[in-house]
């Protein structure tokens, strides 16, 4: 287990360095790192105001998506639960779009993550109300998720189409696919407090989630407070997904692929999987963000395009396995 964490942490550090190095402003490793510390003319601006916030957001959002995916899957005991797939991210995007278009975000900066958080929370509550926590009720969860995704996606498009701003309509892609291009420290500061809160809420869930694998009654007899567990998963997920989506749009599939890949290495226990997934999610999003910058340096290729290309086949594979298990 320690080895897994060491490997994942090394991977994250290497990818974070790569994320700092890749960009149209060509500069060597030494010059870039010196500029990061504040010497070297215009390169300082590039490193401190463009690449550093971009790397930090990739790290934070990737970890959030991995962690919340693992927490949701552990709590619902359902391998298909993922914030993007079941509509939490698109709901959060709708909240963010409403905050921007009503001028709320301009009047009060924190309104942006708060609105996204509120809408993410709404989506989680609706999902839990519809699908409950019965083991293996995959179908209801996915169907409810599709309905929430479709509704919030449509409302996002409606709001942006009604905007008097000629650029708003073209931003639908950003909100539905996600991107880290041209973000700044302002966005890091907006997202960080809510992500921190979400991480704190979900940090100590490992033991409870492990106990839950034995069933709700067994978990309760082992001293797990199920109501508190649910509250922490729900609010924690809404916090991290809401804050991430508010600044980078909805990025899908990371919370699905990462826990799925790492599960065998954690002995199929949801507890250790939480933190492994957080590290793995950060690594995957950083890798995706480096990849979009390497493949199409001149265009803003959306992150969701890459994560979906990797994630959708995984999703099909999981459905296939699910079907065989039931047959």
């Amino acid at each position, binding site marked *: 287990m320690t080895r897994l964490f060491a490997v994942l942490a090394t991977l994250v550090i290497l990818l974070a360095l790569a994320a700092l190095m890749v*960009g*149209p*402003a060509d500069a060597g490793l030494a010059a870039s790192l010196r500029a990061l510390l504040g010497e070297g*003319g*215009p*390169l300082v*601006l*590039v490193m401190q*105001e*463009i*690449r550093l916030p971009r790397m930090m957001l990739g790290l934070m959002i990737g970890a959030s998506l991995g962690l919340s995916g693992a927490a949701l899957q552990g709590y619902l005991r359902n391998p298909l639960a993922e914030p993007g797939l079941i509509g939490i991210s698109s709901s959060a995007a709708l909240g963010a779009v409403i905050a*921007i*278009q009503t*001028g709320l*975000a*301009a009047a009060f900066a924190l309104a942006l993550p708060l609105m996204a958080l509120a809408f993410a929370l709404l989506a989680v509550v609706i999902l839990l109300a519809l699908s409950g926590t019965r083991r293996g009720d995959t179908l209801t969860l996915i169907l409810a998720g599709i309905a929430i995704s479709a509704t919030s996606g449509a409302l996002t498009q409606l709001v942006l189409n009604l*905007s*008097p*701003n*000629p*650029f*708003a309509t*073209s*931003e639908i892609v*950003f909100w539905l696919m996600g991107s880290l291009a*041209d973000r*700044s*420290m*302002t966005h890091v500061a907006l997202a960080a407090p809510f992500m921190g809160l979400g991480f704190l809420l979900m940090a100590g869930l490992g033991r409870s989630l492990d106990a839950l694998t034995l069933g709700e009654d067994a978990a309760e007899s082992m001293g797990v407070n199920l109501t508190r567990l649910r509250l922490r998963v729900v609010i924690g997920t809404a916090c991290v997904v809401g804050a991430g989506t508010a600044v980078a749009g909805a990025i899908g599939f990371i919370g699905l692929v990462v826990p799925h890949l790492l599960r065998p290495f954690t002995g199929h226990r949801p507890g250790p999987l939480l933190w492994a997934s957080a590290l793995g999610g950060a690594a995957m999003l950083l890798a995706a963000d480096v990849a979009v910058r390497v493949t199409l*340096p*001149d*265009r*803003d290729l959306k992150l969701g395009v890459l994560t979906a290309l990797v994630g959708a086949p995984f999703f099909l594979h999981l459905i296939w396995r699910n079907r065989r298990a039931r047959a």
Partner: protein
Amino acid sequence: MLRRAALALALCAAGLPVAAEEGPRRVVSINLCTDQIAMQLAAPGQLHSVSWIARDPRSSAMAQEAQAYPANHGRAEEIWLMKPDLVLAGSFTSRAAVEMLKRLGTPVVEVAPAYSLDDIPDRIRSIGTALGREAQAEEMIATFEGRLATLRAQVDDRPSAAIYYANGYTTGDRTLAGEILITAGFDNIAGDTMGGHLPLETLAMADPDAIITGTPYPGASRSEEILEHPVVEAIRDRAASRAVSDSDWICGTPYVLKAIDDLAAFRKGLE
């Protein structure tokens, strides 16, 4: 008596009623740029309708004048119901509507956008011919070329500048906006290109002496947020910056002279 006849003849030659009788009588323009040239060239009563964007002061240099005409939205049905005997369209506007109107037998004249200052006289001439107002068109061209020649002053010290729009777009020398910038005495950091996406990093490394941005539209957008990015702000603090109104830049009409004039004044302020 003789003098009065001569005066009448002169008036006819100057052309208002006669020219209108030769050309189309009910013209509908569905493109912002053809709208503005047509409003300046058409005989009274000849132009029936202009596009709704022509009334928007952010895009149109003639928003006030456009109020006098009924607005259209470039849709085939509404234009057909206006019964025009000529439709003026841009070569990229409302393709489906243009094709349909042609099929229905309405004459359509398509005018390509002006990609450079040299294109402007040609576009004015095309529209003048279509309207049967060649004399007015030639007069407008002569005035335009005369004023442009006086604006093309030699500049020794050319400050570098970047044009930066929403979504990080820029325009290079081989565009109308690029030529406006060069004529006003700046060197464009985007160089001899059409322009395109200029990453923030490239902008930061180029470190231009001046940055020229569009005026943001109402209703916030993430696309325009880039104009307030700390990198752009830092360049703004260090260099000179100017937000220009898009209306004088978008179309190849004599209004570009005003854009050049404004920019040249801005450059002189830098010295």
